[in-house]
């Protein structure tokens, strides 16, 4: 008998896909995540009644650097509203997260898979809900002064994905995540100068202040400041209904971003003080 039982995820890597999602693991983790969400982030999540009973593409604004605490809060709320046995939620993430030791395995058991061509379409065809953050690291590392701005950087792949798979977009906006660390500037120029965009697909390298790292170029997983997190799930958007079979992608992009920006600004207006909520 082993003297020390190592966590199973230290023994073998969790598969990167729907097969890697572990409902029992999620069930075991939910109380811990709930405690963090409720006591530390005083989280409020509203609007799940807007989600139709069919596969959808959740489109969120991405905050909190590499720690993305609002993603965990959303995941918790989803799995308690729809239950662990309900329609699976699969989030697409940068490989810098899914391929990290320990954190990557944890994420994959929670239903996070590496974003890649065709991956989301496969998942939607399997009947699951897919969560994407079109802004990626550019949005997650936007300056703190822009924390209440949707910053998708002109990326329209999510629209084409939803349209091609005939699924509705369900926008999700969140505040508070970008107050769990401080970001002083837009780091895209530095990332480009150092070649991070080509070598690591990291497109933003701003100066940040976080715990325990202090000042740092870019963002490493950090201990988040206890900012109050608010999340709002919005009514679904049917691109076929609104923009037809051959959409003007620029118009569709402007519309979806505008809807999300209005909702994000309204959510931000609920805040009395930054961080405190």
């Amino acid at each position, binding site marked *: 008998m082993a003297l020390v039982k190592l966590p199973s995820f230290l023994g073998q890597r969790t598969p990167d896909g729907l097969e890697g999602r572990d409902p029992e693991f999620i069930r075991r983790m939910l109380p811990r995540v709930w405690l963090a969400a409720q006591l530390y982030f005083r989280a409020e999540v509203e609007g799940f009644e807007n989600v139709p009973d069919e596969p959808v593409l959740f489109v969120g604004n991405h905050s909190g650097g590499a720690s993305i605490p609002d993603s965990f809060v959303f995941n918790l709320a989803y799995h308690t509203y729809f239950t662990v046995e309900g329609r699976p939620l699969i989030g697409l993430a940068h490989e810098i997260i899914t391929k990290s030791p320990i954190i990557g395995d944890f994420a994959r058991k929670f239903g996070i898979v590496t974003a890649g061509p065709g991956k989301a379409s496969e998942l939607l065809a399997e009947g699951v809900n897919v969560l994407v953050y079109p802004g990626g690291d550019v949005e997650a590392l936007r300056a703190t002064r822009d924390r*209440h701005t949707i910053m998708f950087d002109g990326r329209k792949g999510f629209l084409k994905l939803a349209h091609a798979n005939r699924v509705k977009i369900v926008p999700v906006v969140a505040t508070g995540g970008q107050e769990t660390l401080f970001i002083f500037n837009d780091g895209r120029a530095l990332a480009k100068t150092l070649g991070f965009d080509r070598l690591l697909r990291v497109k933003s390298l701003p100066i940040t202040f976080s715990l325990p790292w202090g000042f740092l170029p870019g963002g490493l997983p950090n201990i988040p400041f206890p900012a109050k997190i608010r999340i709002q799930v919005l009514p679904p958007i049917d691109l076929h209904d609104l923009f037809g079979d051959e959409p003007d992608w620029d118009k569709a992009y402007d519309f979806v971003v505008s809807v999300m*920006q*209005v909702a994000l*600004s*309204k959510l931000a*207006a609920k*805040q009395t003080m930054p961080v405190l909520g």
Partner: protein
Amino acid sequence: MGTTVQRSIIVRRPADEVAAIVTDPRVVLPVIGGLGRFQELTTDAEGLGEWDVFLDIGSVHVGGRVVVERPGPRQLAWHAIRGTRHQLELTVHEHGADTQVTIAMSLQLAGLVLGRVAETLARGIMVRHIDAGLQQLRHHVEFEG
């Protein structure tokens, strides 16, 4: 004393089209007042006159009875005659082919030291509410108008 906040937004529509909405209190108040409550009281045919306008902020309701006026062809303004003492002005400017809409809001709270503290805290709240109002106005003009 008091505190003033000014915020602007670019709306991708011609200035005349935007001004027609911004200077009509019956259209603009439901749009930018979506975060609180408002009620038309004693007004003329164009909606100018007395309104009740409140923002709901946590445990308090900021606002009161206001007199809505149109100081210029591309301006709408109001000042409080009851409740929280404040003034608000909406102004429309051409911005190339687009339009810049600006909201300036001033607030005076009672009290000496704590009144100043509350005004400082209120600045951030005013900024976020005005930003939300401007975003709703922009979306209304660009996509729902």
